[in-house]
């Protein structure tokens, strides 16, 4: 299982840099609005998948309610901008703080549970937040949601007529999520999360504080997810409880990570590169009248991945095995 230096020096070593260069110049060579929006979508879901992966992949604690953290980032940012003209790059802070505090509380409540019970309680958590957003309609706009008016390009408010700035902001957010994941992966906490995923009893009997490590992982994950929620509202100018706090969003987030490769730094990127274009193709083929068609496609992909590469598609790539840590 050890890797020789020769293996590293192949194309797998240069490829990422070439890819990064292409991504950086892409908006200038091919400034198609549609393509750029698709790319932003890929970056965005890859970043969400990374954030989810920290708790769901590395620690193996399945969260089906991650959209709630996104809503916690999106709503305060949107409402502060709308009501008080607070720019999103400041307005995201309260949302992230709320998400981290909620992650702390939620973690201490549910991490005593294991397996399906944990998954169900996180699902319930997401639904509770969604229903609260619907209920307090005086503050949140209820099912009508929050619409941010576009008043021309204004960098202060992160409002841009062109697509390029969003492209680079989202790319930077993805970079941040990758960096945090990479840091967690290499840290003692990363090893501990992996041990927790493998066997909680064994982990605890090696001196690992289960609750502490799981809650910390969830807090990191929630902070990143809320930050992405703040980007969402600044990018789409519209949020409602279903679009930022729906179960299907939570599912899509974890699919990105699971299809790409759970417990790996790069897996969610691969997942997003597969899922998002396929969603676009299905929307094109079946039209908005059959919006559910993309869900069928997700289901088919998920089944194929589970059957043929249960650890995620990254395992099939040359050198992909190295993404997983076994040591």
């Amino acid at each position: 299982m050890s890797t020789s230096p020769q293996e590293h020096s192949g194309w797998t070593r240069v490829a990422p840099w070439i890819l990064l260069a292409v991504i950086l110049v892409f908006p200038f060579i091919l400034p198609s609005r549609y393509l750029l929006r698709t790319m932003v979508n890929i970056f965005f879901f890859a970043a969400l998948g990374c954030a989810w992966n920290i708790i769901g992949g590395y620690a193996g604690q399945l969260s089906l309610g991650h959209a709630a953290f996104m809503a916690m980032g999106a709503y305060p940012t949107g409402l502060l901008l709308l009501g008080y003209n607070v720019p999103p790059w400041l307005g995201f802070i309260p949302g992230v703080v709320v998400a981290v505090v909620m992650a702390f509380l939620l973690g201490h409540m549910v991490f005593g549970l294991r397996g399906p019970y944990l998954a169900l309680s996180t699902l319930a958590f997401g639904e509770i937040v969604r229903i609260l957003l619907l209920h307090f309609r005086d503050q949140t706009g209820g099912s009508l949601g929050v619409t941010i008016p576009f008043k021309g390009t204004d960098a202060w408010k992160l409002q841009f007529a062109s697509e390029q700035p969003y492209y680079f902001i989202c790319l930077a957010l993805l970079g941040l999520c990758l960096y945090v994941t990479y840091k967690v992966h290499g840290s003692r906490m990363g090893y501990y999360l992996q041990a927790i995923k493998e066997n909680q009893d064994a982990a605890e009997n090696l001196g690992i504080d289960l609750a502490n490590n799981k809650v910390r992982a969830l807090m990191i994950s929630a902070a990143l997810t809320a930050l992405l929620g703040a980007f969402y509202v600044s990018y789409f100018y519209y949020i409602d409880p279903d679009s930022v706090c729906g179960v299907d969003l939570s599912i899509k987030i974890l699919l990105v990570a699971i299809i790409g490769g759970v417990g790996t730094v790069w897996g969610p990127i691969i997942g997003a590169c597969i899922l998002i274009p396929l969603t676009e193709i299905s929307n094109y083929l079946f039209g908005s009248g059959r919006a559910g068609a993309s869900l069928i496609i997700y289901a088919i992909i998920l089944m194929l991945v589970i059957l043929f590469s249960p650890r995620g598609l990254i395992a099939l790539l040359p050198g992909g095995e190295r993404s997983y840590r076994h040591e």
Partner: protein
Amino acid sequence: MTNQGESANGVLLELQRVTKSFGGLTAVDNVSFSVLRGEILGLIGPNGAGKSTIVSLVMGVYQPNSGDILFQGKSLLKLKANQVVEKGICRTFQVEKPLLNMTVAGNVLIGALLRTADRKEAREQSRVIIERLGLGKVGHVLAKNLTVQDRKRLELARALATRPTMILLDEVMAGLTPTEIDQSLRLLRKLREEGVTILIIEHVMRAIMNISDRIVVLDYGKKIAEGGPKEIAHNPSVVEAYLGKKGVRNE
């Protein structure tokens, strides 16, 4: 090294009138005994006598209904397993619990990371332990692909990596060949020389009689005897617990 909080007679671990019942079943019934620093104490008894329950009580998996458990003079009650490990007691599991998708080296590394956050140092410490337990050849094998014997060794290796003052061994020799048992006994003696106190649960009588300084015998949750190996072997109630009393326990 001075041992603050440790009583003068060198008691490291002390169970004081510990009782634990599950519903109507009293698994551990008013049991008291001490483990002295540096000794090897055998804990024996027929199946269901409460041996593993005692390990779980020490580790904080269960809380006793009454009684107290002291380690270096301080109560272990209310501590979680990971806190007990931090204090210097580590256990092995009767049914091994390896981290299946990690290598042998990775499993041991997780243990070593408890005392040092430095990956390099932890790796070096695990390497030494792995060699010592004869796992060198399978260091890069995933734990799920190990033989039962190697899994048993891995349990012990991982526990040692946490640098315990005391280890609780729950049937680490089950399934080993006589030669392997001899190797294990040598290793345990060596560990004791290095200052590790050992509480060992074992069904392999030859091993336990051979290695224990003292033996505590449990039956139906009660302590029925305590003493040196020879004493225990000839104790009538121990013989009765294991073999039954003629004409009385035939039902």
